[in-house]
């Protein structure tokens, strides 16, 4: 990847992370950990790979995104605002009565949100259906399915994966956010996930594992998936829950964070200031 392009993606990642933090602090609470772990992924998708028209969210030629771990809605909203689907002011309405940005994504409310999710597991089957329909209609489009590692506890995920592999839906790029934590703690302590990459391979997926905070590696993995034409494809992202902000990475319970204590507020404000500085400096170079 050219240096300039990478810089642009890193700038977008910083902006997304910045807006996630601003939203959650303004709201007073929110699903922080799982939102931050997919920031770089969303940056690579919306900054490089995804085909979309922000002025025409329902464009028939667009690639589609299903974030099955719906509680990461804030990261999606921050991304969509940054690439022009709607104004950033709207981000401050998160979870307010009457908002178009509910905690869990709603395709009937938010421009750019392709599928409603929130009940873990369900997005996987819908993405499978979208991919199958695209193939049957001879449409050259992709659907990107983002799944949580905790979410993989749901049997429905494996029903969907079996389906995707059976139909060789290589236009459905399955991306697993392996941040190694779920709601009640580490995945290994809640219910042993074993080796996710090996499980995907056993299910018939061509699978790549990359660092989830590395835009270039993510981008390369997506390119590689697009070269595969005879099987289902998946990417296991090695991420950190709360990624990119050390304080929140280390916070024991960082699934849903409340900003009702000074420590959390200070840490968030410090992160916001740092990110703002980074954005300002990068803008000079991009």
């Amino acid at each position, binding site marked *: 990847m050219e240096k300039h392009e990478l810089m642009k993606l890193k700038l977008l990642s910083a902006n997304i992370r910045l807006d996630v933090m601003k939203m959650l602090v303004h709201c007073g609470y929110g699903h922080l950990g799982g939102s931050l772990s997919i920031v770089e992924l969303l940056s690579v998708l919306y900054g490089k790979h995804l085909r979309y028209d922000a002025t025409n969210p329902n464009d028939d030629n667009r690639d589609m995104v299903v974030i099955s771990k719906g509680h990461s809605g804030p990261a999606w909203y921050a991304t969509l605002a940054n690439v022009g689907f709607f104004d950033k002011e709207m981000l401050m309405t998160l*979870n307010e*009565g009457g908002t178009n940005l*509910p905690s869990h994504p*709603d395709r009937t409310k938010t421009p750019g949100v392709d599928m409603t999710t*929130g009940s*873990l597991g369900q997005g996987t089957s819908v993405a499978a259906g979208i991919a199958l329909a695209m193939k049957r209609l001879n449409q050259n489009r992709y659907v990107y399915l983002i799944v949580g590692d905790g*979410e993989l*506890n749901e049997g429905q995920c494996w029903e969907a994966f079996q389906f995707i592999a059976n139909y060789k839906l290589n236009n459905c790029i399955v991306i697993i956010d392996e941040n190694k934590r779920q709601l009640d703690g580490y995945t290994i302590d809640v219910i042993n996930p074993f080796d996710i990459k090996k499980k995907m391979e056993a299910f018939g997926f061509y699978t790549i594992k990359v660092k989830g905070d590395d835009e270039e590696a993510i981008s390369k993995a997506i390119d590689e998936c697009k070269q595969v034409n005879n099987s289902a494809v998946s990417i296991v992202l090695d991420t950190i829950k709360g990624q990119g902000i050390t304080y929140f990475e280390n916070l024991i319970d960082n699934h849903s964070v409340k900003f009702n204590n000074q420590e959390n507020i200070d840490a968030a404000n410090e992160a916001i200031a740092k990110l703002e500085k980074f954005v300002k400096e990068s803008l000079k170079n991009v």
Partner: protein
Amino acid sequence: MYKLVDDRNKIGAAMNLTVVKTLQQAMNEDEMVVALEADLGGASGFSKIKSSHPQQFVECGIAEANMMGVAAGMSMLGYKPFVHTFSPFVVRRAFDQVYLSGGYAKNTINIYGSDPGYTSAHNGGTHTTFEDIAIMRTLPDAVIVDACDDVQIAWVVKEFLKLKGIHYLRANRKAVRKVYTDDSRFKLGKGNVLKTGNDILIIAAGELVSDALDAAEMLQEKGISVEVIDMFTIKPLDEELIKNEVKGKKAVITFENASVYGGLGSAVNDVLVNCPQRVKVKNIGIRDLYGQVGSVDYLKKTFHLTAADVVEETIKLLNRE
């Protein structure tokens, strides 16, 4: 017997932690009591059971259907399972398992489905459950309770553990206003007359019982005399009580944080059609609406589930030809 608290604005202990505490006490006395969770231990407080009674705790991961089946299986060997997940995942995600592995196979599953109706608040429409009562009512012999305060929920948990079968408890996780004094005792399947009155009968369940009592006071000020029943057991329903108390009333109001289609409203209507006395009825609850995100106050207003709504509907009903 039950008694009402003097100060109805007093907030009780958190509902979820009351369930946890009651289960822990039961576990101290009976090693066959087990708690099952689906990665919501932080939300339900069941993580505390994991620490205090590790041998009586089963973490199932985010796999609610599996959890119901596991609970059913454990009950076959004598365990007394109490499972928790959010109410939508009980009835929408795992109902087939509750139905067949549980009910039809004559196994036991005690279920705490938390945050029903508007109490899903900031989790929004995807997590909002208005249909749970309707769905669970179709399960033969299931027991359904909508608990109104911490005293009642503690009593219900203890009572469920004595019984075999499918028992569904729906309630907020958060603390709610107190209705009953700490020494109050109840009877499953028996409604409680909380306030007597001559003109109107309000039948409510769950935390809206407090709002029903508010509404009764507001109506009283307008010269309308109101009786209030806490119908915390929605199934089996206390049909006798309804038949007796409707006598001489001008109107019946049902009031629930759930869909009236198949909910408390429908259940009460089923009894009223068989009463010799004709009476005006208004079912206050949800009709043809999905949930949405917002604060509890916002949602109660939006869904017309406040005491003021009850007052307004009552007056409208009385003026209706």
